[in-house]
Each structure stands twice: as structure tokens, then as C-alpha cells.
């Protein structure tokens, strides 16, 4: 079973996000970059499937030099090899262009299964996984909390509003992760040492046959015109009262009569 995991490096979810001077991007200094949390579930699941079925786990990402760190993290967790598409012309690509680039890279990587995070917690676009599945012409399953592979098929429990849908499709399949799928392992010290020697291939757009004039910032179909901070709330109104009963009564009164929400 050869598995490819699509990984992205994103700002840590505890990071304070500030809008840069250009008004369309964020300030990247002082940001701690981490593996997208949903991709950690993807790496963990890939390792578990590989260990039960043999095969390889390849980490595929598009990014700049700093993305090497995230690939090394996945290798330290136990993945076998990494591929980084690193090309200045690819920077600023939107989800569709990233998917085209990853799909082009996948032509040179054997796979039975592709696992991706449900979304990157940076642009929250939900675009890349589904588009890669589309470009590879394979079925997808989203928000998977459990999977089972047998007889060349994968059964996925996909979380939906208020429940679960169980789907089945013949491999190869791309599925995306949801919290609850597994508990991602931490990289061990020996794992970190080993990761340094594992293959990490860096490729340019030319290497994978992508015309640079079709991707990148200038060719986005999703164009960011402006970033704005969310509207500020008015200062909090602290409810006054001597006893819990008084506090509760005053709160429910204001919710009922002023806000009219209860």
C-alpha cells in the first residue's frame, strides 16, 4: 500500500494574525509555523495503514525552503520520503493552482491512497483535497473519522451534521481527515535523527511539467482584494449582583428584553 499525504505548513492556531501593510496579506514575522493540524491526522493514519499493510508513505507539499521543516517533522513521525515542490513562480497560488501542481507531482509518485487534511487552517479554503481528487480522476471521501481497507476497497466513516455516513469506493481514493480519526504521535528523538537521512526531493515547476505562467499570485481565480480585522465588539457589559440568583436574573433579563435572544 503506497500512500501519499498532502501536507501544508501553516501559522500555529495560537498565533496572533496581523494584516500586513499591503492590506492583502498577513505579517509573517514572529509567526510560528507548524504542520496543519488536520495534516497531522493524515500523516498518523498513513503510518498506521502502512504498518498494517506494508508499503510506503510519501509526504508531498508545495512551499518554500521553510516547508522543509514540516516535511522533516512528518519523516520524524515515521514517513518514508518527502517531495517538496519549491519554486518562486508557484508562490501565492490559490487552492486550484496548488492542486494542479500537486496533481502534476503525483504523476511521478506511485500511490494507492492519498490522504489530506480537510482544510488548511490558514485560508480555510477547502479547495485542495477535492481538486487533487478531481485532477487524478479518483473518488473522494471527506471528514473521515474511521477507515477500513480490504479487497482493494476503502470504507470510510465520514462525519456529517448530526451523524455519520459510511461510504465505500475502490482504491485509489483521496480522503480528508476529521478530528477523532486518531491521535497523532509525536516525533521521537531516534525518529528525528533518522529523518535527517530520509530522502527529501525538491522539485521545480519545470521538473513536473507545469507552465509557471498558469499558477502563482498573478493567476489566482480567488483574488484577495482586501483583508480586514473582524469588527470589534462593544466593550463587555459586566452583570452586577450580590448572589448567583441576582446575577442570573439580571443576565436573563438583558438577554430577554434587550438582546431578545431568549
Amino acid at each position, binding site marked *: 500500500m503506497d500512500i501519499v499525504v498532502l501536507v501544508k505548513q501553516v501559522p500555529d*492556531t495560537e498565533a496572533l494574525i496581523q494584516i500586513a501593510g499591503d492590506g492583502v496579506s498577513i505579517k509573517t514575522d514572529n509567526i510560528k509555523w507548524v504542520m496543519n493540524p488536520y495534516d497531522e491526522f493524515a500523516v498518523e493514519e498513513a503510518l498506521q495503514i502502512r504498518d498494517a499493510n506494508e508499503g510506503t508513505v510519501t509526504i508531498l507539499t508545495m512551499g518554500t525552503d521553510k516547508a522543509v521543516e514540516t516535511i522533516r517533522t512528518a519523516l520524524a513521525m515515521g514517513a518514508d520520503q518527502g517531495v517538496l515542490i519549491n519554486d518562486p513562480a508557484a508562490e501565492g497560488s490559490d487552492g486550484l493552482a496548488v492542486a494542479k501542481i500537486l496533481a502534476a507531482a503525483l504523476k511521478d509518485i506511485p500511490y494507492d491512497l492519498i490522504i489530506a487534511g480537510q482544510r488548511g487552517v490558514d485560508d480555510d479554503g477547502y479547495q485542495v483535497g477535492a481538486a487533487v481528487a478531481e485532477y487524478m480522476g479518483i473518488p473522494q471521501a471527506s471528514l473521515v473519522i474511521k477507515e477500513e481497507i480490504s479487497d482493494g476497497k476503502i470504507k470510510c466513516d465520514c462525519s456529517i451534521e448530526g451523524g455519520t455516513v459510511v461510504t465505500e469506493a475502490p482504491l485509489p481514493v483521496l480522503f480528508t481527515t476529521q478530528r477523532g480519526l486518531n491521535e497523532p504521535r509525536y516525533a521521537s528523538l531516534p525518529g528525528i535523527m533518522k529523518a535527517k537521512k530520509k530522502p527529501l526531493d525538491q522539485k521545480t515547476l519545470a521538473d513536473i511539467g507545469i507552465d509557471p505562467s498558469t499558477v502563482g499570485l498573478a493567476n489566482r481565480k480567488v483574488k484577495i482584494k482586501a483583508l480586514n480585522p473582524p469588527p470589534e465588539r462593544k466593550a463587555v457589559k459586566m452583570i452586577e449582583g450580590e448572589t448567583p440568583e441576582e446575577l442570573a436574573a439580571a443576565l436573563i433579563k438583558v438577554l430577554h428584553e434587550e438582546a431578545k435572544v431568549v
Partner: protein
Amino acid sequence: MAQGVLVITEQRDNAFRKVSYEAVSEGRRVADELGTDVTAVVLGSGIEGIAGELGKYGADKVLVADDGILSDYTTDAYTNVLAEVIKSREPKVVFLGASVQGKDLAPRLAARLDTGMAMDCVVVKAEDGGVVVTRPMFGGKVLADIELEGDPQIVAVRPNVMSITENAKDGSIEKIDVQAGEVKTTVLETKIEAGDKIELTEADIIVSGGRGTEGKFEVIEELAGLLNAAVGASRTVVDEGWRSHGDQVGQTGKIVSPNLYIACGISGAIQHIAGMSTSKFIVAINKDADAPIFSKADFGIAADLFEVVPAMVQEVKKIQ
């Protein structure tokens, strides 16, 4: 030239999901600004009976794709059918709800049609014959104004944000030929949790608990039950195993926009705030008067949730 608004609706067990009424209403509003028509699409099996409802919210026409193969949602069949509908009708803007189904379908359709898609839109404005949208990024820490290139512009609206407006139009029904094409995915089973559990992303009111609950959710459940509210939880609570993953509100959990969010014993970590900051009213109840949650709340009570929440239960009973 592409023109018109197409709204992809969603039904489960032959009942429309609330977000579909929101999407049709918003589609109508935008179509009026653009001076164009709204066509809604319903897919499923035996769904002709419900299709007429959409006229009430402003659909001029309702396309009905009624076929056994569409009875359960599969990405393959729904994408195949909808891509053909869009290619033949050439709408300028396609609306759908950013529900779980919408989050699976919209990106695949966008890739198939090679066009721009925006997820979880909270504002849609008509401009230059099409739309400009606003959507949260970084879990709501910033709002992005987005222009979408390509035809159609695919706009997935965040559940619970757009208002449902009655605006009766013809809603004439047209059955369409279903060419589902190759469908590799089979739905084996749909398991819906028993009871009337209210989905967080669709709830009008959410009562949420954090570390301060120490895992004891009885009082929160009781208040939620009275208010017909959903129960949410912070990441700590889920990591501790006190509540299931599906209850988590935050940047790596569910992003919610209820009318009222009551945060009990939640300190207000950035990643939690990201998941609920678009709520209309936020109430924070926390023993620690310096907890960061108070800076994001409309109303605050600095006291023990185990004393205040039961008292709130009594007060709610009085007004009901």
C-alpha cells in the same frame, strides 16, 4: 454570456436543510441587484413534492433531478449531474450552503469547471454583473474580500449567517434528465444520532463549556435543553475526553455563528475565539474576572458557573 443565479439546494430525507432556504434567499437578493433570475436545483429521489417550496423564497424556476442514484449524496453523481446543469444553463453565480455536503461538493465542482470558489461566505455583494464576497480566513481572525474569476462564480454561504426571506416567485418546476455518469462511491449506511440533538453549525443558541466545567456538563445540558440550544465544548474539554470531537468549537473544530453563544468556564484561547467570534451575542461566565473571554463578550458574569448556570435555569423557566 453567463448570466443568472443558480442555487444548489440540499435535502435530507426529503426535507430541505435550513441553509438551503438561506442560500435561495441570498441568491434572490443578489439576483434582484443584478436584475436577473434565480434557478434552484433539487437533487434526490422522490423529491418532486418538496421542490415547490423553493418558490416561496424567491426561486423563479426549480430544476428537479429525481433519480434513484441521487437518493444518497455521492460526490461523483452530484458533481456529474450539476456540472452538466451548469454547463448547459451557464449561470453567472452559483450559490450553495457551506454545509458538510457543500464543503465536499463545491470544491470538486470548482475544479471540474475550472472556476473560482469561495467557502463559508458571510457577505455577498453584487458588483460588475457578478459578485464580490467576504469570507473569514485564519479561523475568523481576518475577513477577506474576494473577487472570483471564471464562470460561474461559486459561492458557498456559511450556515446560519444569511437571513431567510420570503419573496414569493413562480417556482415553476422543470424535471431534468439525470446523467449521473460513472459513480464509484457507494453509500453503505447513514447513521444519525438518536434524539433531537441540535447541530452546532445550525443552532440559534449554543451553550458551551470549557476547562472550568471539570467535565461536569449536567448543568450546561440542562440550560441548553431549556433554551433548545446545542451544547459545545472547548478544545481542552475534548482533549480531556469529557465531550466528543463533534462538540468542539474552535479553529480546529466547528466554526459557529449562533444568535447567542454562552461560554461557561471557557478562558478564551485565540483558537476558541476564532470558532465563535461571529456569534451575534456572546455571554461569558467565568470565575476568573481577568479571563480573556470577557474581552470578546457582550455580557459577562465573573462568578462560578456551577452557581450561576443553575440559577439561570430557574430564571429561564420563569420567562417560558
